[in-house]
């Protein structure tokens, strides 16, 4: 899964593998302005024209051109179809008979938005909002500041977006090429913007469309008014009415400054002006059915344009949403079935007591999960278009979640629409994104099978005509061990004790990793300065020098899964750990006790 720039892959990468040459190259190129600070060369490719031949072009949901050709040039789709002349300078991409889709768009996302430090207790076992926690003190409970109240609609994505955040790469390799992202916050966290998930030095380079909507949620402030949803709703009405007042006041003042006192500027109220003018919607996070009803009531009262976002219980409110006819962004945060705890076999007890009540409760729970899984299919059946929100969702779960929705009745075309044409339409960028057509921005996903096939792999992603290449899934050799396949390299010795450090903003977590056994029988456990006790490790997998494993820890009442992806180099290890939905953090470590 290494991403390689064209030149890098063709020339430098093979050379770097031979250690002696590395020094030479590094010397030669040191100080060159062509190198980015990180030391990875950022060179222009020899050509920016690419051709995909004999591919299945999924122009838009339901429209496929078999054996077609796509030409990408200067960041745009130059041609897509059959019988197309190939420019001599085009680089031919090995994508024979693969599937080409328009680049996916996250309907709502926090990709590229780093978690604030306080929430990065990532690996810590602190109880969020737990009992006994001191209420934060507010400067003046009667008049909390906008920030204490969680009212920050003035915050723009370009002010907080980090173009080098790991989440961007995680989404990109799934096929996402653009995302509507928004700043982290509470009831009014800020303005959403459409950003590219390509590479760029800063937010501005990736900004595709600014202020696509004002995000609103029922998330209350901590310790200050509004500390409940009824406070949030009351405050929203007040802000909205006072924004209208200020707008009128400013108009009157600019028309005739002599007749009235100067209106005082207010960055929060002014952020509502585009909403009052009907230019942008309130993108209202309404995960459960009650929220949907509440948003509808507020909308009816205040008359703002609304997008229903992060909807999870649309199954129950399909008719309402249909009558509303507003844009819908459904959540990919779909709970998994509770793991059945198998009772420990006790041979001394021969009588098995059937718990009828518990069985009925379990059946009801399963039924409820089916409804959540079936939301997408139900809305689609009602003829409602929707896009997907990835807020609070682990990147590695996304494809499986979409597959579960398909299993529950969503068609692949409907799923594709939710990933491409619908978000493009919702964001008002259908003329640039969402389909594979001549003249559109060259945002493409190339998958070796149908994307929705369980065994498919994304092999190429194009963003603004720039190529990102990915390896396919390793194919196990007949009768051989996939793990041992490697590239002739000697399998690293994993067994033993390792010390490690996880670097999370504001806090580091240190501890020990212990592995026993070898090959597919590797087992292990780990300790951490932030988590009490010893935690078991599962799903250990070694592929060449890559070591991956997972572990589940409890954070308060929540179960958080840690996904480690490490590279072992002799006695040192480095890589990343994904911590639930908190983010992905760097890991480094060294062997302290070999076996």
């Amino acid at each position, binding site marked *: 899964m290494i991403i390689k720039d064209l030149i890098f892959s063709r020339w430098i990468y093979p050379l770097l593998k031979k250690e002696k040459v590395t020094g030479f190259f590094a010397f030669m190129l040191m100080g060159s302005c062509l190198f980015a600070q990180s030391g990875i060369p950022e060179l222009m490719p020899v050509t920016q024209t690419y051709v995909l031949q004999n591919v299945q072009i999924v122009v838009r949901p339901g429209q496929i051109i078999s054996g077609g050709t796509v030409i990408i040039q200067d960041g745009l789709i130059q041609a897509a179809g059959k019988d197309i002349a190939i420019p001599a300078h085009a680089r031919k991409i090995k994508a024979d008979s693969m599937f080409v889709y328009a680049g996916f768009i996250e309907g709502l996302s926090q990709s590229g938005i780093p978690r604030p430090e306080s929430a990065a207790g990532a690996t810590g076992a602190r109880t969020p909002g737990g009992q006994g926690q001191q209420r934060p003190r507010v400067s003046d409970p009667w008049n909390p500041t906008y920030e204490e109240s969680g009212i920050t609609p003035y915050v723009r994505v370009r002010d907080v977006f980090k173009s080098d955040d790991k989440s961007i790469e995680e989404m990109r390799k799934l096929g996402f090429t653009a995302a509507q992202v928004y700043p982290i916050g509470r009831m009014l966290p800020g303005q959403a913007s459409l950003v590219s998930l390509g590479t760029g030095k800063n937010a501005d380079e990736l900004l595709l469309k600014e202020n696509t909507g004002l995000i609103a949620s029922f998330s209350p402030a901590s310790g200050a*008014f*509004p500390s409940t949803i009824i406070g949030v709703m009351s405050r929203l009405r007040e802000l909205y009415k006072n924004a209208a007042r200020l707008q009128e006041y400013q108009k009157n003042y600019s028309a005739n400054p002599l007749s009235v006192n100067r209106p005082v500027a207010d960055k929060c109220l002014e952020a509502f002006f585009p909403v009052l003018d009907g230019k942008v919607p309130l993108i209202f996070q309404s995960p459960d059915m009650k929220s949907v009803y509440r948003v509808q009531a507020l909308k009816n009262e205040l008359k703002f344009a609304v997008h229903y976002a992060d909807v999870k219980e649309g199954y129950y409110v399909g008719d309402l949403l249909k009558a509303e006819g507003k844009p819908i962004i459904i959540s990919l945060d779909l709970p998994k079935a509770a793991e059945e705890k198998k009772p420990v076999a006790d041979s001394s007890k021969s009588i098995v007591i059937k718990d009828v009540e518990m069985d009925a409760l379990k059946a009801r*729970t399963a039924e409820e*999960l089916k409804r959540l899984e079936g939301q997408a299919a139900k809305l689609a059946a009602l003829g409602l278009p929707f896009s997907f929100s990835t807020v609070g969702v682990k990147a590695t779960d996304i494809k499986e979640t979409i597959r579960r929705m398909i299993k529950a009745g969503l068609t692949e075309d409907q799923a594709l629409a939710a990933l491409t044409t619908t978000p493009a339409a919702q964001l008002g960028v259908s003329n640039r994104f969402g389909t594979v057509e001549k003249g559109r921005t060259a945002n493409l996903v190339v998958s070796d099978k149908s994307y929705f096939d369980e065994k498919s792999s994304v092999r190429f992603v194009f963003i603004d005509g720039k190529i990102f290449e990915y390896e396919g899934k390793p194919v196990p050799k007949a009768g051989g061990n996939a793990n041992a396949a490697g590239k002739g390299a000697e399998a690293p010795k994993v067994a033993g004790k390792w010390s490690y450090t996880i670097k999370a903003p504001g806090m580091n977590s240190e501890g020990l990793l212990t592995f026993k056994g070898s090959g597919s029988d590797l087992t292990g456990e780990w300790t951490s300065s932030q988590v009490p006790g010893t935690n078991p490790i599962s799903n250990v997998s070694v592929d060449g020098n890559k070591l991956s494993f997972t572990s589940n820890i409890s954070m308060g009442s929540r179960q958080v899964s840690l996904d480690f992806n490490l590279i072992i180099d002799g006695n040192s290890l480095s890589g990343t750990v994904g911590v639930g939905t908190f983010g992905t953090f760097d890991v480094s470590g060294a062997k302290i006790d070999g076996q």
Partner: protein
Amino acid sequence: MFKILNILNLLFLVSFAQAQVTKGSLLIKNGTILTVTKGNMENSDLLVENGKITKMGKGLVAPAGAQTIDATGKFIMPGIIDAHSHIGIDVVNEASRPSTADVWVGDALDPLDLSVYRALAGGVTASHAMHGSANAVGGECETIKHRYGTLNPEEMRMEGAPRTIKFALGENPMRVHGEGNRIVPATRMGVEQVFRKGFEEAKAYMASWETYEKEKVKNPAAVKPVYNKRHETMAEILKGNIIIHCHSYRSDEILMLLNVCKDYQIKRLVFQHTNEGFKVAPELAAYGAMASVFADWWAYKFEVYYSTAYNAAILTKNGVVTSINSDSEEYIRHLYHEAAKTQRYGSLSDEEALALITINPAKQLGIDQRVGSLEVGKDADIAIFDGHPLSIYAVPQYTIVDGVVRFNRSKDAADQRLQASATRAETGFFLHKEQHNHDRCLEGAFENTATFFGLERE
């Protein structure tokens, strides 16, 4: 299980088919009708058409298609009304400042709350979903009808019911704000000042709008005052458009609030809990203030030690419009028992005792023209018992709201939830409690009970 889901699907369809409140027609045959306001009618029928009581008498005939309930040997009474509860809402306290007159629990109605169904199983058809008592001025409350089965929060509102607001005296606002944040009110004197300050601000607010309205006639560019929902709500109280329901225990502070209301010419006032109401019953009656009390619940904190089970009877005999409330998801299921206690402690008549849980709470909520007694023209909110409701042996059989049977004991399924968790197989009994116990009127009481009975909280 299959059956339950079918019922749910049916309800689901019904709730969407009609944007308006679902209303029914039915005939209740041959029961003893306890009208509460106009005596009893034996072996009589009661006809409901489109959610209203249209006829009461003998030998009535059901219109085509209407359901008939045989009430032979059964007692038919007005649906019980609880003037103080916290069910059917997702939020109880916005405890962030001493006055939150700007919030409204009607914004957070919870049609999924199983407590509403349990209340129906106790014959309760309407309740006053109140803000909690953390703040001197809590927030606006909502009078709800127990239309369990709808998913639409809007359908729970008792359409047309007057606005009400929660006030609170004594230890709760003092503890939350005075002790918690070191601000006024740290004492009972401070609580009074929160009210007075709020009303003064409201008067100034009203004046600023009046000035603006006048100015606007001459000058179209006149500057509007800044909109302030808190001041606006307090102003609506001054205008007589909102009924105050005040959490209170001690007689001295009950008199204090009477004086505040006198100063601001506020007429519509109901005291809640009112444990020392018996000491000031003549004063309450003279002012026209009403009282909603517990039958025999006290001593869960210091300011509630001086109490008596004769409270409701003393208040009633002094001419105070009195009700008995639950303030509890559990007590709400047997308010008819609570009312019956006034016959043991105070020898109230059947009619007086039943009035405590029907027409009197209706008066306190300003909805007595619509509910609270069985009369032609009133809403068909009805409870049917298999014995006299003041008998310890009586069990509710049917509970009807707007002519729709919302509880039928013979069809009571094991799982009546409208929505369940998709991840945890659980009944959800404690989940609601957990959420609502924070800073509510009886803070701590539940923990004591749980400890006493050895109940483990999740």
